[in-house]
């Protein structure tokens, strides 16, 4: 199956950085920043000078002046270094802050990347400052396997909520409050969980009005339960409180982690409802007769990616009589509360951990026993207050989660590494390394295969447009092969991979590098390829001479095909010519004059300085017989543009840099049917910003929708576009 051609043709050899590299990049930059900003480990000037003096046997009066002069100089250097550290830190933080203000969603992702990178564990301060400055919460979960029920868009919504909440945090107030609570707990004072937890949520950015309402609702709930509890908790009473707190729908909402949200709307995850239950039961225990209160102890049981509030009933001798797990169906464990792979912690310890600066650590094997492997869940939770407890070791799978997963018919699967995890790299291929080039070709097809839509009905799935759009841009870069020095047999081996028949779309382009390094036989072969495009460089040799022989050989093959009756704009690969920057204008004009009626790309993007198309070149462009001409790397003068507008003898496709310059000068060009944008690169972020700020606001208003559409088209072309991670099923 040949890959259908896009309406917007492709440019070769743009690589897309895999997502997984982003976090490494974040770590790397912050690690370097951390290292630069660490105060250097120089000895104090006095110590350095003294050490050197120690190796000489000289009286003080002979060295005094010299030593103090040296110390003063060293001190001056230390001061300069200190100033440099401060300047660097201030400048980096300012840059990050300005960026963060502008790119809010990206800020949250950046923070998530930083939070999950190993640097956090050994940060010496800079990252912490970045985090504080970004003013965003620390905890959200991003484990590594796939499961519903949280869809990607739900996750993104949670990320947005995290950011909004993060922007409301008053760090100073929060630290003061946490310190106060810490000191009270250390002094052994009785600190009510009810008095602190919602306050902590508010200090962590939860809307204060919502917190107030939650406080009222919580009180109403406590009053309601207190009215019927009697002098002690019966088992029925405990179960009725839990069941009523969960309501008829016993499920968790993975994204919802705030207790405020739970009291106000009933939406909860395991963490928020556990905290809410602990508050309610704490208040109820307080209302029991004094002699009964010590009979009950609240806490939390941890399971893998899950936690459950527990209520322990304590015997008079201090041993545990039984433990209620406060989630339906409220199982009761006789005796000790810990289970293999499920340690528990009491409420007071939790309170302490929540206001501590460093996380508390505990082991998962509080009770020995076998713990089976289990898959992870991908979930992002907006959880304002972290339990701040690190559990070391393996945790047991949650029966409750397994039950819900079964009830909902959700498929949990361990994610195996696949071709989609990695966009093939374009590493250098040595001339004797044919195997690597073959591997590269196979990798490209594996990548295409991994991006094909899954179909229930194979026949109907062959909708060419759908297939084309579902596969992101794929280029095979064979330009680093030293074609000149390959044995004919080795060339055969490489082409055997390219000519192999496959039931897959072909890659968007294959780059063969400098055409003057290719043999005549190789040029014959590349004209026979099924790929939609072949990329070739045309440049001067090392002595500054340009040979046109090989490119004309290729053009002749196209011309012959045209004479034989083929529509070479459809039947032959588009030829993408990367023009070297020293190629003189006359050669370009000659080349344009020689083109037959096919699709050709004249790409001058590699030029260091962007120039204007000269009048005689513009004339050659207009007079060229090419049916579709793609141009990039030089801008049109008003005169040149006018010539092109007036000559609809072919379709002119301009690369995005050239196209936006054209519509900036002449917004009406968007309605000229024979001038089209050519999506030849990723076009987003700072480049669009720069363009916007340097464009007349009146013009910008006119062309903004076009620019935004081009941005979307570029993203769709070079990434997976709008299909996201979802499997596309179509069985019309």
């Amino acid at each position, binding site marked *: 199956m040949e890959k259908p051609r896009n309406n917007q043709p492709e440019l070769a050899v743009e690589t897309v*950085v895999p*997502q997984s590299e*982003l976090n490494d*990049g*974040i770590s790397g*930059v912050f690690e*370097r*920043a951390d290292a*630069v900003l660490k105060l*250097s480990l*120089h000895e104090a000037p006095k110590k*350095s*000078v003294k050490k*050197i*003096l120690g190796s*000489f*046997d*000289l009286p003080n009066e*002979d*060295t005094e002046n*010299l*030593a103090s002069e*040296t110390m003063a*100089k*060293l001190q001056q*250097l230390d001061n*300069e*270094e200190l100033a*440099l550290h401060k300047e*660097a830190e201030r*400048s*980096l933080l300012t*840059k*990050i802050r300005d*960026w963060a203000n502008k*790119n809010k*969603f*990206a800020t949250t*992702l*950046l923070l998530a*990347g930083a939070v999950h990178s190993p640097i956090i564990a050994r940060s010496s301060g800079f990252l912490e400052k970045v985090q504080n400055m970004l003013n965003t919460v620390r905890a959200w979960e991003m484990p590594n396997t796939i499961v519903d029920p949280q869809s*990607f*868009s739900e996750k*993104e919504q949670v990320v947005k909520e995290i950011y909004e909440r993060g922007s409301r945090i008053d760090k100073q107030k929060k630290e003061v409050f946490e310190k106060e609570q810490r000191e009270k707990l250390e002094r052994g004072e009785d600190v009510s969980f009810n008095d602190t937890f919602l306050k902590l949520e508010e200090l962590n950015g939860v809307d204060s009005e919502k917190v107030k309402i939650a406080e009222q609702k919580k009180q109403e709930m406590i009053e309601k339960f207190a009215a019927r509890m009697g002098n002690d908790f019966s088992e029925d009473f405990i179960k009725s409180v839990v069941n009523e707190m969960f309501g008829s729908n016993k499920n968790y909402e993975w994204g919802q982690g705030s207790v405020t949200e739970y009291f106000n709307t009933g939406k909860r995850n395991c963490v928020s409802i556990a905290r809410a239950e602990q508050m309610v039961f704490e208040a109820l225990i307080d209302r029991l007769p004094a002699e009964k209160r010590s009979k009950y102890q609240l806490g939390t049981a941890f399971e893998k990616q899950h936690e459950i509030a527990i209520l322990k009933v304590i015997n008079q001798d201090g041993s545990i009589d039984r433990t209620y797990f406060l989630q339906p169906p409220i199982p009761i464990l006789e005796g000790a509360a810990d289970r293999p792979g499920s340690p528990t912690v009491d409420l007071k310890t939790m309170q302490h951990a929540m206001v501590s600066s460093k996380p508390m650590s505990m082991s998962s094997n509080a009770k020995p026993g076998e713990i089976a492997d289990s898959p992870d869940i991908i979930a992002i939770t907006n959880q304002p207050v972290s339990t701040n407890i690190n559990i070391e070791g393996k945790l047991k799978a949650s029966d409750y989660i397994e039950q819900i997963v079964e009830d909902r018919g959700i498929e949990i699967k361990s994610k195996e590494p696949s071709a989609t995890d990695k966009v093939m790299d374009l590493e250098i291929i040595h001339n004797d390394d044919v195997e690597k080039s073959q591997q590269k070709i196979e990798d490209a097809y594996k990548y295409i295969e991994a991006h094909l839509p899954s179909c229930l009905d194979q026949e109907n799935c062959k909708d060419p447009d759908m297939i084309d759009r579902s596969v992101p841009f794929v280029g095979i870069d064979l330009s680093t092969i030293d074609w000149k020095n390959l044995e004919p047999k080795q060339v055969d081996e490489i082409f055997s991979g390219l000519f192999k028949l496959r039931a897959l779309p072909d890659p968007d382009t294959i780059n063969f590098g400098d055409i003057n390094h290719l043999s005549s036989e190789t040029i014959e072969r590349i004209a026979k390829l099924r790929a939609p495009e072949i990329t070739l460089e045309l440049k001067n040799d090392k002595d500054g001479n340009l040979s046109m022989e090989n490119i004309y050989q290729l053009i002749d093959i196209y011309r012959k095909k045209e004479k034989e009756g083929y529509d070479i704009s459809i039947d032959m690969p588009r030829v993408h010519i990367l023009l070297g920057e020293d190629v003189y204008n006359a050669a370009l004009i000659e080349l344009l004059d020689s083109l037959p009626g096919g699709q050709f790309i004249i790409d001058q993007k590699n030029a260091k300085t962007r120039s204007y198309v000269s009048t005689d070149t513009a004339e050659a462009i207009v007079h060229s017989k090419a049916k579709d001409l793609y141009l990039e790397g030089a801008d049109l003068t008003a005169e040149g543009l006018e010539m092109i507008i007036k000559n609809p003898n072919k379709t002119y496709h301009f690369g995005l840099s050239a196209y936006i310059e054209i519509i900036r000068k002449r917004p009406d060009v968007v309605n000229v049917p024979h001038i089209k944008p050519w999506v030849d690169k*990723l076009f*987003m*972020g*700072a480049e669009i910003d720069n363009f916007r700020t340097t464009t007349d606001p009146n013009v910008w208003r006119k062309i903004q929708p076009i620019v935004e559409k081009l*941005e*979307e088209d570029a*993203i769709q072309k070079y*990434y*997976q576009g*709008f299909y*996201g*991670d979802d499997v596309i099923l179509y069985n019309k």
Partner: protein
Amino acid sequence: MTMDTIKAEHEIKELLKQLETDLDDYYRRLDALGVERREVLRLFARRLEKIEVAKMQQRVKEQVYGEAEK
């Protein structure tokens, strides 16, 4: 991946690139200060050496000429 995420990742890459460039510059300036520091200490040691040599020469001179004068 959705459009928002792709844009956000691109923005992050742009920021990281800028930070890298700044960090390179700071590294260079820190290095230069380090070189200067080592140079100051080296010069200090050399000048002490000279003083020591001068003193030794002085002592030798005194011993030789002092003896002769006696």
